[in-house]
């Protein structure tokens, strides 16, 4: 299958720190791509730069061949890329339904039609029992789900999930992984940024590893985990995989 997202020589610096140094890779249509790397390796910067929150200092990003480099975030979302935030950011004073209606309005002019789509997305995300709960009253796991649900209601072709599993217990994580798989089966390509290796290995078709703003490795999850450079960057030199 062809590439849905093509990233070429993407660069981003903050002051003297180069958060992204010349990053290039493609994401294939329909895959779940894991993006891993130690803290500060540039994963979130990558998401924020692709999504338009940061303006890149150089390089190109194309979605299905269309150049989207440097577009403002709303236009990137309209082009078909949805994202969640590392710390979930629901509209705290709105109910779950009202939160999701905002994103469902992207394709609809009328609130009634958007509400119908929003209810569907809420059901898929398993939040139906909280539909009229204000999102400030949701526990962390449900807030993350709401973030995901909102992104889903945009009907994106590419979904970037920034550490959606952080802070979840094993059962919640398992449910979350099932949800991501279900979304992927509907034809949504996923970039899955995560620290929890178990989740990455069980979910992703392919893994890209970042270290200090550079791409360190790219390949099948198990192979990448065995890669010496990855082990060194990620777990420290003394770790020996058995």
């Amino acid at each position, binding site marked *: 299958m062809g590439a849905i997202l093509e990233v070429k020589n993407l660069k981003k610096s903050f002051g003297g720190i180069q958060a992204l140094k010349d990053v290039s890779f493609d994401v294939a249509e329909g895959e779940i791509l894991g993006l891993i790397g130690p803290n500060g390796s540039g994963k979130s910067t990558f998401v924020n730069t692709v*999504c*338009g*929150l940061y303006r890149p200092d150089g390089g190109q990003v194309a979605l299905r061949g269309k150049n989207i480099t440097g577009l*403002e*975030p*709303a*236009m990137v*979302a*309209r082009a078909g890329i*949805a*994202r969640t*935030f590392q710390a979930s*950011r*629901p*509209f*705290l*004073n*709105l109910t779950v339904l*009202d939160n999701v*209606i*905002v*994103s469902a*309005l*992207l394709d609809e*002019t*009328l*609130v009634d039609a*958007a509400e119908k789509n929003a209810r569907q997305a809420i059901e898929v995300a398993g939040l139906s029992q909280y539909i009229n709960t204000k999102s400030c009253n949701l526990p962390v796991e449900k807030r993350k789900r709401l973030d995901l649900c*909102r*992104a889903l209601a*945009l009907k994106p072709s590419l979904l970037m999930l920034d550490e959606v599993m952080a802070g979840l217990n094993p059962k919640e994580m398992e449910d979350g992984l099932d949800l991501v798989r279900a979304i992927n089966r509907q034809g949504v390509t996923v970039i899955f940024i995560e620290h929890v290796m178990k989740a990455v290995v069980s979910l992703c078709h392919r893994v890209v590893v970042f270290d200090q703003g550079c791409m360190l490795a790219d390949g099948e999850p198990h192979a990448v985990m065995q890669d010496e450079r990855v082990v060194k960057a990620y777990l420290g030199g003394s770790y020996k995989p058995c």
Partner: protein
Amino acid sequence: MKKDVKKYLLTAVAAVLLLAFPLLVDNLYIQHSFFMIFLFATIGLGWNLIGGYGAQLSLGHAAFFAVGAYTAVLFVIYQSLTPLIGGLVGVVIAVAVAGLIGYPCFRLRGPYFTLATIAAGEIVRTLLLHFQDFTGGANGIPLPYKGDNFLFLQFSSKAPYYYLALAMFVVVFFLVRYLEHAKMGRYLAAIREDQDAAESLGVQTHKVKMFALLISAAITAACGVLYAFSVSFIDPDSVAGLNLSIEIAVVVIVGGIGTLWGPVIGSVVVIFLTEMTNLYLGDIRSGASLVLYGLLLILVISIRPQGLSSFFRRN
């Protein structure tokens, strides 16, 4: 069902009372006070679109009010043009001014919009003072009386102004009620809560804010036109002063920012207090109404920061 019947009955009684009011109370001062209550409720509803729902604090709405008022009055004086058209031109100019403020500011975060609105208000006031040959300057400009004439919005009694203000209030109230629940209101709420998250969902925040500001400016300018013709005299300080801009914001903040009934309740309380202090304390201490203002604002912010309308809200 029962609740609905009760609601409709209450609305009907309120409507009849409001319509019959000028017939029941012939005191001109009280009629004028009610006119001012409707006028400020309407401006407040308009201000709330950008200041409340969109949380972009404007302290320059007097600029739009003054542009509406002066344009309509100057057209009558120099062209003998009916304010029904001159007022419309005023509204269009006010919308253009709003566009000039919003375009650079809404792409920025932080207090820039508020600062720009304060500046815009002062620029309009200074221009009105500077071109005194044309605008009458600080002396203000009296409206030539053309007799009881709807085309020139001049009437021998206060009642027609009361009805015009009531009509404008009703139209704007239902417009804002519609917008609040429509796409625009939903987007404004998202912007108020978290701009970055809203943008990640495809909300073009600067466009939404701009649209809200333009409607807000149009409503305020239309109110300026009505005000000018009801009092027959305008001057820069009263229609373009920072005081007026602050009063508009205070009305909404006291009543309940970002709520439909907030500007209405705020207008009733603030205008009633202003008129009463002007009536009873005006001769003794001219600043009395301002002191009361400050006290009211301190009380509301410390006891009920969501505004008075929150007392009426269920749950």
